[in-house]
């Protein structure tokens, strides 16, 4: 096969080649992004730890469980440690339009139960010692330029202080996570601080616990614990629902409803658009080459050569586009991660995302190349040479 001819032909119309490569790149980039969202959701579910169970109200996400439940659950055999989680839902005073999550937790059991979370700066002792201390994710700290020891004012929406002032949390540590499925954009503070404020009348709001995390002892049967805990409160006052972490995450994904389907539809449309674009380019290219095809045939090149050249050209265009698209994706990945990380910590380009982009692009390349290639191989030299332009 005359390779030189191939590469020369590829950029015979440089603008057109670049435009085609550009549209393939855009398509691959978009498809990778959409796929990263969908797999990000799946990853959140898959990466869940098997030794953590979550206990929530069986009635509603927004109903708290009584504090008294902790003691009863601690007595269930196989429960090693308990960490309370309470959604705070406050707004940062300096950026009311922005949003990040805040949770009240138990520092003593939190770090022991979540080995994925480690302090990058500051210390656990500091966090435990100071009632109004908090730790923040490193991405969050970077976003607002927070430093260790700084005080963060948060306006309560669910929990408001009776003096009308915002809550203030002092940063005792900056944490990082070892897995992309746990975000680095959350503020954690002491549950005990919230409880005491409510008890002393310093604040108003629901007194209870959003979610209890139960750490399962090594060797204990999580299924048995789930059943035992659910049975404890089957007759009220609040029924509970104990789930594995994976199931818990899956519930949230499920609540997104048709969003993943929507993403797939958009991906399909992108694929559709780009397929037609490349096919159009290749058919036009095939047309313009008709005379050249005739010459090659007259010179004695086998029937398939001209077709193979067109096919290879199509593959090269799509391959180049795919490479650029994937590179653009990798380049912009951190920016997107920062943008959606709080919502979707699992967002990221896994190997299969990149592979998908590459395979789709090459698939389009093959099909779009085959159409003119087939025509080229069927043209007789006489027909091809007679055609003008």
């Amino acid at each position, binding site marked *: 096969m*005359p390779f030189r001819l191939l590469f020369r032909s590829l950029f015979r119309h440089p603008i057109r080649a670049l435009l085609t490569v550009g549209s393939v790149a855009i398509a691959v980039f978009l498809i990778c992004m959409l796929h990263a969202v969908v797999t990000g959701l799946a990853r959140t579910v898959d990466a869940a730890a098997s030794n953590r169970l979550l206990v929530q109200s069986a009635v509603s996400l927004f109903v708290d469980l009584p504090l008294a439940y902790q003691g009863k659950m601690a007595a269930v055999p196989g429960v090693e440690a308990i960490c309370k989680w309470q959604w705070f839902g406050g707004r940062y005073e300096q950026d009311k339009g922005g949003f990040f999550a805040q949770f009240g937790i138990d520092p003593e059991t939190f770090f022991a139960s979540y080995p994925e979370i480690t302090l990058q700066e500051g210390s656990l002792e500091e966090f435990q010692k100071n009632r109004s201390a908090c730790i923040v994710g490193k991405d969050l700290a970077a976003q607002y330029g927070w430093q260790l020891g700084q005080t963060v004012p948060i306006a309560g929406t669910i929990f408001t202080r009776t003096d009308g002032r915002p809550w203030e949390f002092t940063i005792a540590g900056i944490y990082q996570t070892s897995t992309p499925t746990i975000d680095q954009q959350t503020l954690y503070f002491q549950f005990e601080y919230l409880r005491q404020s409510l008890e002393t009348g310093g604040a108003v709001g629901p007194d209870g616990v959003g979610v209890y995390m139960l750490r399962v002892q090594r060797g204990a049967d999580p299924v048995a614990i789930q059943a035992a805990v659910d049975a404890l409160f089957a007759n009220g006052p609040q029924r509970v629902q104990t789930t594995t972490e994976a199931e818990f995450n899956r519930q949230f994904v499920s609540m997104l409803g048709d969003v993943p389907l929507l993403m797939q539809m958009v991906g399909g449309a992108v694929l559709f658009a780009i397929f037609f674009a490349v096919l159009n380019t290749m058919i036009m290219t095939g047309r313009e080459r008709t*005379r050249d095809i005739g*010459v090659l045939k007259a*010179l*004695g090149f086998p*029937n398939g050569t001209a077709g193979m050249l067109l096919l290879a050209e199509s593959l090269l265009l799509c391959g180049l586009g795919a490479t650029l698209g994937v590179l653009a994706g990798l380049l912009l990945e951190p920016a997107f991660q920062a943008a959606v990380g709080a919502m979707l910590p699992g967002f990221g380009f896994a190997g299969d995302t990149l592979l998908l982009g590459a395979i789709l692009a090459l698939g389009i390349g093959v099909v779009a190349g085959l159409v003119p290639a087939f025509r080229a191989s069927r043209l007789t030299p006489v027909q091809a040479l007679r055609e003008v332009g």
Partner: protein
Amino acid sequence: MSQNSIELRGVTRIYRRGGQDLRVLDELDLTMAGSTFYALMGPSGSGKTTLLNLVGGLDRADAGEVLVGGEDLTGLSDTELARWRADHVGFVFQGFNLLPVLTARENVELPLLLLPLGRRQRREQAERALEMVDLGDRMDHKPRELSGGQEQRVAIARAIATDPEVILADEPTGDLDRDTADAVLLLLQRLNRELGKTILMVTHDPQAAGYADRVIHLDKGKLGRIDDNRATAGRS
């Protein structure tokens, strides 16, 4: 039968156009001697180009046999035909038909890719062909950067690069002015005289036909008279 003679036996070619059958060639019998320069003349639609295409193995007859250098083209498959073209014929077209993306040298090298040659051999052979057409100094120019006469000479170099026995030319001077045309025709004549190539050239220009040894006249798919220019030239 000589290595490079051409023989047509009862060749018929029918085109179907608008539901009507058009007999472009009608049971044509014609023998052309080897190492001779033939011109093929006739009014438009007389079947000149069709005849040329049949001899070059670009087209197939509906009936009859075409023998070139003793080889019967009738029975060859498309692939075998392509292979045969690469080895035995060189084409020169009216519109030159050079590949615009390749340089002169690369255009000439193109048919050599089909032969079992090394890279250096290919290069040397292409350069030799270009020097033969006096374009040794324009080898790295793209067709766009050459004049019409130069383009046609590159096309001729491409036709002779593989050292074929037969060269087929379809109106090679149709797009050229008189002086340039004369140079191209002289070149073809030289290839016939010095290298012994059989040349079949379609033309409608009597002056161009004057460079050939013999002139075959076609009319409505039938053979007309054959003039022998050498005989006339000898007499005058």
